[in-house]
């Protein structure tokens, strides 16, 4: 890897169990898709690092190549790319997101994710 942005991305996903590459921040998202994923994580009380791609053009383009994924947001758990907005929405409703966090040893509020499923049943 010679792209410095890729190295910065790798450092973030190695150092943090859960990383969300997004437009804006966890408390101030600047795009609807980023906001959706951040809201899910916030609601589930998942500790995560938010990386604002709007603050760094290198990371904004670099993350797309790094993951071979053309859009933002992008969620990483334990160094693995999990998906973007559509996939995360599907996974929270199917319960797979809970499993991903459980397998990764990531703490989250199970009652909250159950409530998301109840309200979207």
């Amino acid at each position, binding site marked *: 890897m010679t792209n410095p942005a890729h190295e910065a991305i790798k450092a973030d996903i190695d150092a943090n169990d859960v990383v969300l590459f997004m437009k804006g921040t966890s408390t101030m998202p600047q795009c609807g*898709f980023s906001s959706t994923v951040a809201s899910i994580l916030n609601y589930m009380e998942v500790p995560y690092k938010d990386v604002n791609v709007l603050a760094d053009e290198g990371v904004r383009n670099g993350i*797309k190549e790094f993951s*071979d*994924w*053309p*859009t933002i947001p992008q969620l990483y758990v334990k160094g693995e*790319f*999990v*998906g*973007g*907005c*559509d*996939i995360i929405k*599907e*996974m929270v409703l199917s319960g797979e997101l809970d499993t991903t966090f459980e397998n990764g040893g990531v703490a989250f509020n199970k009652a909250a994710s159950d409530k998301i499923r109840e309200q979207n049943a």
Partner: protein
Amino acid sequence: MAMQAVEIESLIKEAFPTANVIIEDLRGDGDHYAATVVASEFAGKNRVQQHQMVYAALKGRMGGELHALALTTKTPE
């Protein structure tokens, strides 16, 4: 630059000739679409890989001229 629904459909069909493709223009603005792609080629692939296959079919337009495409991928029953 927005894309026409037929253009999206034909690119996907080109890569997945036997797929069932449904495109919905969510806001009627030619910029926010939802696509459901049911293709046998997805068998044995995880969701991320399935979506990557569709993005590859769109030849770099996703995230560029195609701003928003909510994607659902499935294998045939």
